[in-house]
Each structure stands twice: as structure tokens, then as C-alpha cells.
């Protein structure tokens, strides 16, 4: 399965004020109760600036970016169903920054 950068909201920490939807409208909308719905689409390098803004500004530190398998079928370079490309180095660096520290573990 293809791996890509994905944004997730920790629903336990999230208090639903909806700030993130203003900061990152490209991927976040709000449900009828004001809680964020994050699109399943993987993050692209162009979106990282806004993604980062949302991660940093969430008052409850509820937003995370992680490297995860994605359901959205994206053609791999080989066109097969292989593991798919690893995140680029630029992407990996951004994730490390977003996590607020070095790489996990």
C-alpha cells in the first residue's frame, strides 16, 4: 500500500473551536458541531506551509502529521501495486519539523 503524509486530529484532545479549518481550509472542514473533518487525501509539499500553521496554532495540540498508508489509489512510478514511493527527503524533513523534534524513536 502506498504511504504518504497524512494529517490526523486527536479527537480526545480536540475541543472543536474550529480554528484549524480557517488555517487550513484546503484539507479541513467542520462538521455540524464544529469539529474538524480532515480530508483523506495525502498532503502535498505545496500544502505544507498551511498544514504546519494548523499544527502549530491548534490550542490543544490535537493535530498531527504522520507518515501512513493511504487508501487513495495513487499510481506508483512503476504503475504496479508495489509499496509505492517513500516520502521525499523534503517531505521527511517537514514531518520531522512538524513533530517538533527529530525523527520518531
Amino acid at each position, binding site marked *: 500500500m502506498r504511504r504518504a503524509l497524512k494529517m*490526523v486530529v*486527536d*479527537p*480526545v*484532545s*480536540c*475541543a*472543536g473551536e474550529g480554528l484549524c479549518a480557517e488555517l487550513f481550509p484546503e484539507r479541513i472542514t467542520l*462538521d*455540524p*458541531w*464544529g*469539529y474538524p*473533518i480532515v480530508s483523506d487525501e495525502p498532503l502535498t509539499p505545496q500544502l505544507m506551509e498551511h498544514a504546519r500553521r494548523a499544527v502549530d496554532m491548534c490550542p490543544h495540540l490535537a493535530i*498531527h502529521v*504522520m507518515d501512513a498508508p493511504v487508501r487513495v489509489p495513487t499510481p506508483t512510478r512503476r504503475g504496479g501495486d508495489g509499496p509505492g514511493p517513500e516520502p521525499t527527503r523534503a517531505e521527511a524533513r517537514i514531518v520531522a519539523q512538524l513533530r517538533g523534534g527529530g525523527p520518531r524513536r
Partner: protein
Amino acid sequence: MTTTMHREVTSGAPHPAALPRLLRGLRPEGGAVGLGEHLERWGALDLRWVRHHLQPELEDSGLRGHGGAAFPVAAKWRSVAAAGRRPTVILNGAEGEPASAKDALLLARTPHLVLDGAAAAAAALGAGRGVAYVPRHLSDALLAAVGARQRHGLDPVPVEVLEAPPGFISGQESAAVNGVQGRPAVPSFIEIRPIRERGVDGRPTLVHNAETLAHVALVARYGARWFRALGTERNPGTTLLTVSGRPGGPVVQEAAFGTPLREVLGLGPDATRSYQGALLGGYGGTWVTIDTLLGLDLSEDSARSSSATLGAGIVVLLGHDACPLAEVARVVRYMEGESAGQCGPCVHGLAALDEVLQGLAFARQSRANVEAIGELCALVEGRGACRHPDGVARFVTSACAVFASEVAAHLRSGPCRRVGAPSELPFRGRVLRRQGGVAARPR
């Protein structure tokens, strides 16, 4: 396939095709099988063999978890082992699901088989800690069983018995991990750090359902080949089922995977005359029509081909005397109350679903906004820290499909007389009736 030193079936082994396996030798009524009787019946585990060979053997056995998700056991062990530190093993006996009684039955009647599974897991993975997480009514007896084992040196690590609080979600994996650490037994958001890598006290943690561990104990004794003599290629072995709704009350029974469900449940082609629908997988599961039910066999794959799930092995047959919408509304209200109340979409979404379903089931002039049901279900799915709301969505969506004509009738002319009938679906605290066979033990 890995090549392993296959466990040769010892002379004392039960015939591989014989049923039941886990429930072997249990009489319909009776107490717990004590340690002496247990060792006579099953022999002692060879922990030295277990340490070196159980993991590949489990891989070959194809055993999947019995806690609800049918996740391959060997794959879970692999990630726990890969985390590289001494793990904690948790025997999950919480069984929060009101329509399930199999874990309590195993723990009350054949506790040493379940504890053997925990011991085998602890030995094979080099665990530093073993915990039995069980409801209060089982903990004293289990503590005594653990004590007897300790005196005979049967467990590689002493097993602590900790109490699982009552409630639907206290047995969810991360809730169990929290409970074991003395925190409120509610789920955590674990998407970023799986329990298998960082669970109890930050250590890798293996959480298994009680029944899963009992099957592990059999693989540890008789090997993968023996284990695979029953069941199907993808769903090998046997499973316990808690079946309720039939005359005589709930029963826990064991059957081989792949057996036609009509045979397992003893249903004839005229079953539609007795039952108006069936619930598979409990309150986080799916309703199916009786016709669908009669076409399924006992396996997660077969259930999934009809968009259903067996969950933790639960079948509830619903007779014609009940109002299905009243039953559904009561369960949704119960499930709403069982939410840990931590996640916005779960709290608000289940409350909204509850309101619509109460209106649909009980209001004289039903102006329930049934169109909202689908939308609400989509809004809660995948949006909690745990899968509790997903289960409710599955339960409600499938109920609306199976009982579509009742939905239409309620909208047209309000509830019929059946709406006042007492609840057929069980809730905790309500005493489950018992009957012959191996009776479901009430809690």
C-alpha cells in the same frame, strides 16, 4: 510458509477433528476445572518448546483474534517482538459486550486453559509482566487459579489480576492499557503510537482476548497442523459463539469455522417464521435478514461478503413479537450512554442518532428525520479515538436496511402494539437466562 520444527501431536492429544475443543469436558452445569483436573485433561505446557518454536507455529496455524477484529495473531506478535523491549502481556477478559458471554464462561469454567495461553505468550515473547484484566465477579476465582499455578511454577512471569470496570468500552485495547495502569479505563488516541510498540508504561504490549489465548494454549500443545484440522484455510480452527434469542435463552457453543450457520444455529428453511432478523457481532455489529443468515457460513470472510461481521462471535435472533425499531432504539440509547464522552463527533453524533431513533421508534406521530440517519452515521465513522461510534453506525445502518418496511410503517402510522413488548436484546445487569448445553453464565 515458514519451515519450523513441527510439533508432533502427542499421544494424549484429542483427535484433531473432534469437537468441542475449548469446551472439551465441560458439563452443562458445574464449577471451574481445577489445576489438577486441567493438567490431567490437557497435560502441562512445555515452556521450553514454546520459547523457541511457538511463534513460527502460530504463524502456520493462521489463528486470528477472537476479540472482534479477527486480526492475525502472529502479525501482532511480530510487531510486539520487533519493538525490542520486554513486553507486557494482557489477557483481556473485560467482555463489555452485553450479548457476549464466552469470555466469562471460559474464565469461570476453564481458567487454566486461558492462563496457559497467557503463559505461552509471555514465554515466547520474553514478557516482563503478565496481567489478567477481568471483571470483578471473576477476579477472586482467577486470583486463586493464578496462586495455584505459582505454587507449581507454571507461569514464566507471575500474573497480576486487575479489575476491568463494567461498561461497554473498558475492554477496548487502549482502554484496557489505561485501566491496567490505574487510569480511567477509557480509550486513548493511539494512531500515532500503537499499543504494540508503546503500551503499558511505554513498553510494547500484547493485548489478547481471553478466547484467543485459549486457542494459543492449544497451538502451544498440539501445533499448527492439529489446529488446522478444523476450519477453513483462511479461518482455521473453531470459535465460540454466544447465541441468544432462541427458546431456552442464551447459550455459548463452539463450532468449526466454515460450518454452515444454519447448521450451527439449528435453523430450518422455515426459520423466517420464527425470526424476523438476526444481529451478528453484537451491538457494534450488523443486522442481517434471516435469508442472508441461512446462506452464510461461520467465518469472518463469509460474514464480510454480506457486509457483516461476526465480531466477538455473537448471534442474536430476533423473534416476531419484538418491535425491531424499539430494540434498535434501546441499544442506541445504551451505546450512547456507554460512550466515554471524550470525542466530539462521538458525543454529539450518538446523541443525535439517539434522538432520531427514539422518535422513529416511540413517537405517536413520527416526524423523525430518517434521512438524517445516513448522514449522521457517515459523520461519526472513523472520527473517534476508538471504533465505538463506527460500531453504532454499522448497527443502525444495517438495521434500517433489514427493517426498511418497519421504518416505513412507523413513519406512516406510528408504532404498532409490539412497541411495548419487553426488550429482547440483553443488557448488562439484566439476568441472562440459562439452558442446557453449556449455559451462558449470567453476569
